[in-house]
């Protein structure tokens, strides 16, 4: 039987098939770049078609920030007008935008606009508010909404068609925000209660104005319930994201009640309230737990000025001191030093040019009902500079009030690893400042 070698023929067949031209089975009508350009043009037309523009509330980072609202109007020549509640007394800014084909269709704000303020860094916040200047258009929903995501961290928001009134309402957000922040004269003791007719939980609330976030700490067991409650404002309410839950019921919006000066929200029989109190809910026992002897508690303006525990009332007093200081003197540090078991000193450190000075006087101290009361010993000031003494007098009155301070230990750290304690004046509960605790040898 004759044997034939069919392998070369098989090879030929394979070669023939490999280069077959499947042009007729192309999936898309147009090349990718042309399809992207068409899509971008369609999005430009969609954006420009909304007569009163678009509105959104954008949470740049759902872990670290609350939300800011914007209304924007695009034209076909890549011009955009925008207003946002990211600044007080907002005004309409004009700028430019582009639609780019990168990571999908991208809306890029090319010039400074209110939304780009969220990327504007400062010395204390080099990461700004985690904003972005570019946003991927994820999808256009059937109802015309556009789903967007930040190119920086994938945070999503929805652009909805705006009405004429939305442009006016943005300006009213400031009033709600001001009510929420409160006056510098308000007590720092602010509570959030949520519950029904039979039971409720009380949280102590601290608000971070820069990031629009509130921290809720259970007032009974001092356990931090949540540090990531972002807030956003409307003309008459504050939105909490994620919503606050009680017994499976969510409360996301609280409305301002002018008559009672408090925020209130309801869902079924669950009610939430945000209100001020002149005294702490739970006096706690932080003073008893502190080893006071040789412990120095220092407020440093360079690292503690911006914490959410540094109250506007304290900042006001502190600024007042510096306004009253003569000859360019600047107060930069305050130390409350418990030098022995019964005595200590308050030391104010200030600079003039490159030289540092200090002024201090001594006190006796004792705990009274969970307040720490400092009483001047009558030895007088370490300085005879009457200008400095006068400038410090209002702050000094707080330190040596007969009502004393509430002292509380924080779980947070700021810049350094030192444990931080807050001092809150019982005389004027709008005055609270954080301090670093450090044991000294003297």
């Amino acid at each position, binding site marked *: 039987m004759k044997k034939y070698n069919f392998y070369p023929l098989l090879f030929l067949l394979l070669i023939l098939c490999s280069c077959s031209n499947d042009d007729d089975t192309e999936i898309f009508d147009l090349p990718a770049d042309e399809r992207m350009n068409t899509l971008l043009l369609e999005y430009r037309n969609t954006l420009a078609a909304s007569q009163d523009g678009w509105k959104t509330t954008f949470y740049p980072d759902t872990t670290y920030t609350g939300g800011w609202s914007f209304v924007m109007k695009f034209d076909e020549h890549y011009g955009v007008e925008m207003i946002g509640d990211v600044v007080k007394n907002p005004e309409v800014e004009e700028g430019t935008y582009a639609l780019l084909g990168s990571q999908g269709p991208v809306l890029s704000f090319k*010039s400074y606009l209110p939304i780009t303020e969220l990327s504007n860094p400062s010395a204390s916040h080099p990461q700004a508010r985690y904003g972005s*200047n*570019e946003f991927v258009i994820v999808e256009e929903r059937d109802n015309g909404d556009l789903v967007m995501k930040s190119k920086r961290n994938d945070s999503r928001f929805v652009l909805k068609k705006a009405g004429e009134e939305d442009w006016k309402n943005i300006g009213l957000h400031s009033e709600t925000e001001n009510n929420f922040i409160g006056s510098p004269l308000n007590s720092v003791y602010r509570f959030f209660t949520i519950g029904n007719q039979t039971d409720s939980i009380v949280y102590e609330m601290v608000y971070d104005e820069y990031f629009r976030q509130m921290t809720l700490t259970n007032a009974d067991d001092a356990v931090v319930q949540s540090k990531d409650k972002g807030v956003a404002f409307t003309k008459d309410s504050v939105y909490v994201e994620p919503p606050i839950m009680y017994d499976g019921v969510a409360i996301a919006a609280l409305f301002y009640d002018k008559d009672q000066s408090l925020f209130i929200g309801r869902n079924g029989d669950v009610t939430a309230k945000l209100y001020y109190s002149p005294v702490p809910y739970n006096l706690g026992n932080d003073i008893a737990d502190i080893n006071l002897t040789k412990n120095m508690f220092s407020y440093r303006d360079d690292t503690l000025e911006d914490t959410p525990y540094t109250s506007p009332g304290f900042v006001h007093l502190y600024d007042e001191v510096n306004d009253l200081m003569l000859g360019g003197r600047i107060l930069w540090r305050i130390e409350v030093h418990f030098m022995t078991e019964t005595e200590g000193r308050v030391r104010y450190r200030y600079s003039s040019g490159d030289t540092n000075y200090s002024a201090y006087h001594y006190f006796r101290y004792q705990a009274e009902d969970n307040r720490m009361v400092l009483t001047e010993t009558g030895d007088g000031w370490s300085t005879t500079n009457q200008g400095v003494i006068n400038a410090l007098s209002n702050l000094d009155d707080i330190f040596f009030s007969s009502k004393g301070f509430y002292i509380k230990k924080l779980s947070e750290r700021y810049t350094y690893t030192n444990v931080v304690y807050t001092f809150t004046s019982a005389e004027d509960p709008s005055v609270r400042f954080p301090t670093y605790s450090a044991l000294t040898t003297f």
Partner: protein
Amino acid sequence: MKNKTAIYKITLIMLSLFLWSACGNDDEIKESRIDTSTPELTAMDVWIRENLTTPYNISINYTFDDNELDNSRYLTPPKLREVEPFLDAFLEVMIRPFEEEVGTDFVKEYFPKLFVLVGSYNYNSDGSRRLGVAEGGKKVVLYELNYFTERTSEASTSELARERFARYFHTIEHEFGHILQQTKAYDAEKFGSITPQYRSTWNNLDEQEALNLGYITPYSAKNMDEDFVEILAMMLTNTAEDFEAILNLPENDEAREALRAKLEIIVDYYRESWNIDLYELQEIIAKKRQAYFEK
């Protein structure tokens, strides 16, 4: 055996023919898909084209461009209303003096080709601010544009406003100094031997400490190239009188003499390598700056 050979021969011929023809692509060469059409130009674009790009070969990127910036930083685009005042000053106080001193061709050839403007501050991790960055002698990124008018316009008579104004141009003079320095070498050995204690920890020095060591700014103490351009930038952003006062700020003779010795090398280098009289250029810039403030 013969049959086998014949089959292989035929196969090879066929294979050659098929390979030659199988992948033939008869598609016609089509038009490029790259979009080369002129984009819509704004009034600002036209101003830049007429005043900077066409006459001086300089392009300005004043809109946010992810590709030109460090993506790890949080930065904002410039406010449109800040761009023209800044570029107007840039033209008057930076470009025209060089043009007057050494000619248009010099500006065209050696000035950075691309300036990227950024609105916000740019913070380093140590809290210091980056005012500008030069890349490869072709591109300069300038920060803090959104504060230009606020800092400089209101107080045309204020010393502070003039100082702040000078800071913007200090950055540009500094970066442009690097380009020239890298194009034609200066006597680095001689220059570096005058104050050789350069250090990476320059940011620990305050201004007076740096001056007392013979460095005109703390950043000068980083290395001799930076020292060279810092002295140059300080000279060109101050009047002769103010610069003279700065040279006398060190609190010891040794440092004062060191500053003057380094300045002499810089002045000689500019005269010999670039035919630029720095004292004359300093005077022209000072006059243009004064005229700008009086506008």
